[in-house]
């Protein structure tokens, strides 16, 4: 669940100049893609590191519940996902990401007004879903691009090897994979998923949680039911 590479990625000497440029480009691309007129100038200082208000938490609940609504199992709002997202942004996000997230909450609301004439909280469930689907498509395309890049790098590495070129004096540092910045919707989706699927409802109702399995069956027929939930 936690990203093992976090520490490495923060080590400044590991970020090459090329990667630094890519980061900025991707960041601009991300902002440009997410639409809205206020985006280029959107540099307002957000309340980074501060607790979210009840209204903001209610708003996050609705975002999360649009991503993960009630079906045959309760949805994200029932699992208090908004409060979890707020806590995670406040306690765990770097200030720059906190800023992106809080700006994103406003951008999302602006996008709803642009598209539907009303803010997100007043939009209908269908309008909310359509809006988030657009944003999701953008972040998906970006992550597909990253996946393709990673695959290409891997293939290049292996084909170099097949041509039995001498091993380059590659340092460990240059091999460390770079993690590009996330757009705000990616953050929201990630936190909603994490908050929901690690909540009591998400673990015991959406998934199957067995505190103490007592045995290991290494290979059994799959019964078509939800996944086994993991441990903390």
């Amino acid at each position: 669940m936690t990203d093992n590479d976090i520490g490495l990625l923060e080590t400044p000497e590991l970020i090459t100049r090329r990667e630094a440029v890519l980061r900025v480009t991707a960041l601009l691309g991300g902002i440009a893609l997410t639409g809205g007129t206020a985006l280029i100038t959107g540099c307002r200082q957000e309340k980074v590191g501060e607790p979210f208000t009840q209204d903001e938490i209610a708003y996050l609940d609705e975002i999360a519940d649009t991503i993960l609504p009630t079906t045959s199992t309760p949805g994200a709002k029932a699992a208090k996902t908004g409060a979890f997202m707020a806590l995670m942004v406040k306690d765990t996000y770097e200030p720059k990401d906190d800023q992106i997230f809080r700006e994103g909450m406003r951008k999302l609301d602006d996008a709803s007004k642009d598209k539907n004439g009303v803010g997100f909280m007043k939009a209908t469930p269908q309008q909310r879903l359509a809006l988030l689907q657009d944003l999701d498509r953008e972040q998906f395309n970006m992550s597909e691009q990253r996946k393709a890049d990673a695959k290409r790098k891997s293939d290049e590495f292996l084909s170099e090897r097949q041509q039995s070129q001498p091993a380059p004096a590659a340092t460990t540092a240059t091999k460390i994979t770079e993690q590009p910045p996330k757009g705000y919707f990616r953050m929201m989706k990630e936190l909603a998923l994490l908050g929901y699927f690690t909540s009591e409802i998400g673990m015991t109702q959406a998934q199957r949680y067995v505190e103490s399995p007592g045995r290991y069956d290494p290979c059994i027929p799959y019964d078509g039911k939800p996944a086994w939930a993991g441990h903390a």
Partner: protein
Amino acid sequence: MQTQEYDAIVVGSGISGGWAAKELTEKGLRVLVLERGKNIEHIKDYVNATKAPWQYPHRGGRTRAMEEMYPVLKRDYPLNETNLDYWASDRDSPYTEVKRFDWYRGYHVGGRSLMWGRQSYRHSDFDFEANAKEGVAIDWPIRYAEISPWYDYVEKHAGINGSHEGMPQLPDGQFLPPMQLNCGEQLVADKANKIFGPHRRIIPGRSANLTQAHDGRAQCQYRNACWLGCPYGAYFSSQSSTLPHAAKTGKMTLKPFAIVSEVLYDKDKKRATGVRVMDAINNQMTDYSAKVIFLCASTLNSTWLLMRSATNVWPGGLGSSSGELGHNLMDHHFRAGANGKLEGLDDKYYFGRRPNGFYIPRYRNLFGDKRQYLRGFGYQGGAGREGWGRAVAELGVGGQFKDAMSMPGGWTIGATAFGEMLPNHANKVSIDQTKKDKWGMPVLAIDCAIGENERAMRRDMQVDMAELLNASGVKEVQVYDAGYFPGMGIHEMGTARMGRDPKTSVLNSHNQVWDAPNVFVTDGSCMASAACVNPSLTYMALTARAADFAVNELNRRNI
């Protein structure tokens, strides 16, 4: 300053210290076990062991406040909300990084035996002979035949699961039944083991988890929450396995919050007489005397202690006469390998959370293979079905998406190699007199890096795994090198190596300090080479062997 007398003193209560305590008390000695940190009582003090995952406010993650408090721990997985209490404070116990070195420490009763990875493998004679054959560093003073009975001995007590494979590079042991490969792993193993022959094979991982009840401890419940402390005592730790036996003799005194600041040395008798201890709470000093002293304080701390002892005789400290004390620091380099997707198994699943995986023993530079680098690596990996985490990268929002993501995803399989790091005199620790810890003691300066041999090996670590997966029908195979800095393996070794000659080694073949025969060092600092297997089982065996030798020497009045 008062003095108290014991037959033996054991410094440290982790994997090595726990074994020393058990062996020495069971042989009738009155033993003082000194632990620098707090006590953690078996089961009672595993405060998070039965907590539900959703009860952690950040669901097990890390906060920025934690990252500020733990500038080293944050560099890798150890910094997390579930067992933060088990990791030493970077602030209280700083150190100097001449080059980046990640030092993850456990300063409490049980040490890192509480949080260890539990993978347990024997060294073979390929490992014990490598230095001598290749002219690297110095020869190990022992061979497999000498330590094999001690592997038997500690395995029988600790409870190691594994399968009998008959592979000369990874000797079989006294195993409890293995933890089986799951369907994905078995599918790949069946193909790979046919293609790559008898020396390069996927086998079940060998770990110190009980697959059946053993020594009064319950069998593994397959919760995969070992790092919280096991309420069933189902994995080996000092708490579950060695300290209870030491306590049962009535001859152990376990003293937490006791920081040993030096070994006291009588230069006329050429013997250690005891240790000086600072109370970690009130900073009071007390001397304790004993006939024999076991240093099991973890690799770098045992060396730190030696460097601070008998400096009136040897400015570099006890054991420094060879010029090798503090040198030849090693770890295992890892975080490089490959992974991919498995098809055709979507009708298969598993039940239970197995705290183990598969293993591929070393095959490089063995059996006629010859690479551009020396030594080799083993792989640790696993296969499984993806969970909800895949949803982050997938397209979708809404009810259908939620229900789909609640189901198990496709099968993936992957592994990282653990590579041997060569002993190198230039990789060293020293005492930095300019920086002090919370108790006013000077800290270690660590100067260690991997070299060309390791870098060359890292290419094979990736390529070989991709080759095996591709050959076995795995799809979308990708290599990775997630980066490595010394220390990340949490397998610090060397800095007080064993050897055959006091001119080139700190310890003799029985882990005795050449310059003080009643001082034994049996943790990772004694290692003359690292091999590529997880080292803890070897510390257990060497400690039990040294304790047996020490008691015989005491009885013969040789020490």
